[in-house]
C-alpha cells in the first residue's frame, strides 16, 4: 500500500511529523514540568483493520483519546491516545499535585481537551507551516472506548480502506504515563499530500531528489 507515497516521500513525511511532534512535546513539557520522552516516529499506510489491531496491541483496557479534525488541502483526524486508567494522572501532571481527587475529576474533561489542543494543534501547525499550507482545526473532542471506536468515527476523513497511521510513543516516566499520537487521512488527502511533499522536498533539499532513498 505504500506505493501511494514512495520511499523518499515517506521519509519526508516522517521527518515532517517528527519536527511537528517534537515541537509540540516541548510545549507539553512546559505544562507538566518534566521531560516528555518521545520515540522515533513510525509512519505506515495500512488498512483500517490493521490500524485497529495496532492500536489495540498492548492496550487491553479502555482507551481515552483527544481528537481534532483538520481541513484544508488535506482532510483528516489527529488523535492523542492513552490508556483510560492514566487520564487522571495526566490531568494531575498538568493541573498540579495539590488538587484533590474530586477537583481532578471535575477538571478532567477540560484539561484533556487542553492537553490535546496543545499537542495536536502544535504538531499540525508546524506541519502546515512547513508545507506552506493552512489547515483549519476543529475544537478538541474527548472519546473513550476500545481501539475500534477510534477508527470508526463519522467522517471526515471519508471511510476508506487505507489510512495513514503515524505514531509516536510519548512517556512521562516519573508518572508512568504512556500514550501515542496517531493521524488518519483518506486516499484523496494522501494524493494531495504527495504533491505537497514534493514541494516540501524541493524547498528543503534544493530540488535534488534522489532516485534511491537509501543512505
Amino acid at each position, binding site marked *: 500500500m505504500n506505493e501511494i507515497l514512495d520511499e*523518499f516521500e515517506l*521519509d*519526508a513525511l*516522517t*521527518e515532517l511529523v*517528527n*519536527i*511537528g511532534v*517534537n*515541537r509540540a*512535546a*516541548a510545549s507539553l*513539557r512546559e505544562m507538566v514540568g518534566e*521531560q*516528555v520522552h*518521545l520515540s*522515533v516516529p513510525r509512519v505506515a499506510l495500512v488498512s483500517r483493520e490493521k490500524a485497529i489491531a495496532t492500536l489495540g496491541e498492548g492496550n487491553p483496557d479502555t482507551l481515552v483519546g483527544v481528537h481534532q479534525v483538520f481541513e484544508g488541502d488535506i482532510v483528516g483526524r489527529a488523535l492523542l491516545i492513552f490508556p483510560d486508567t492514566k487520564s487522571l494522572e495526566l490531568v494531575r501532571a498538568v493541573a498540579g499535585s495539590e488538587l484533590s481527587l474530586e477537583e481532578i475529576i471535575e477538571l478532567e474533561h477540560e484539561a484533556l481537551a487542553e492537553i490535546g489542543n496543545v499537542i495536536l494543534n502544535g504538531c499540525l501547525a*508546524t506541519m502546515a507551516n*512547513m508545507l506552506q499550507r493552512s489547515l483549519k482545526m476543529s475544537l478538541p473532542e474527548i472519546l473513550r472506548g476500545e481501539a475500534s471506536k477510534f477508527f470508526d468515527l463519522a467522517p471526515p476523513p471519508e471511510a476508506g480502506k487505507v489510512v495513514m497511521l503515524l505514531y509516536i510513543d510519548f512517556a512521562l516516566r516519573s508518572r508512568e504515563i504512556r500514550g501515542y499520537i496517531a493521524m488518519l487521512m483518506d486516499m484523496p488527502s494522501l494524493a494531495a499530500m504527495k504533491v505537497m511533499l514534493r514541494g516540501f*522536498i524541493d524547498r*528543503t*533539499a*534544493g530540488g*535534488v531528489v*534522489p532516485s534511491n*532513498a*537509501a*543512505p
Partner: protein
Amino acid sequence: MSYRILIVDDSKLARMAVGKILGTVHPGWTRVEAANADEAVARVREATVDLAVVDFNMPGRNGLELVAELRALKPGMPLAVISANHQTEIVTRVGEAGATFLAKPLTEAALRCFLDTAIMHLEAARS
C-alpha cells in the same frame, strides 16, 4: 581552509537539508553522511572527520549517546546536535556533552554560527 563534515540523521531529507545550507555557506567542504550511530562511528574510524552535525532522535542510539562516543574517539571535534525537541533537559544535556544545540528546521544563520565557532576551534588546534 576546507574541512570534512559528518552529517548524521536517519532521514535522508534531513541530511539533504543540512547539505543544502552547507553548500551555500561552505561549498568547498567535503560532506560525509551516516544514517545512524553505527555508520557514523564507522565513518569517523575510516577517514578524517573534522566536525559533525548529529540528529537527536534516531533509531538505535540517540544523538547524545553518539556524541559521547565521538567525543571518546576524537576529543577535540566540534559537535552539534540537531533536533526540533527543544525541551530544557535535552538542550542542557547537549551543552553538558560539550556540543551545540541546533533547532530543527535548521536555518542558515544557526548553522553558520555553529560553523564559525567550530572553525575557530579547529584553527586554534592546528596552530
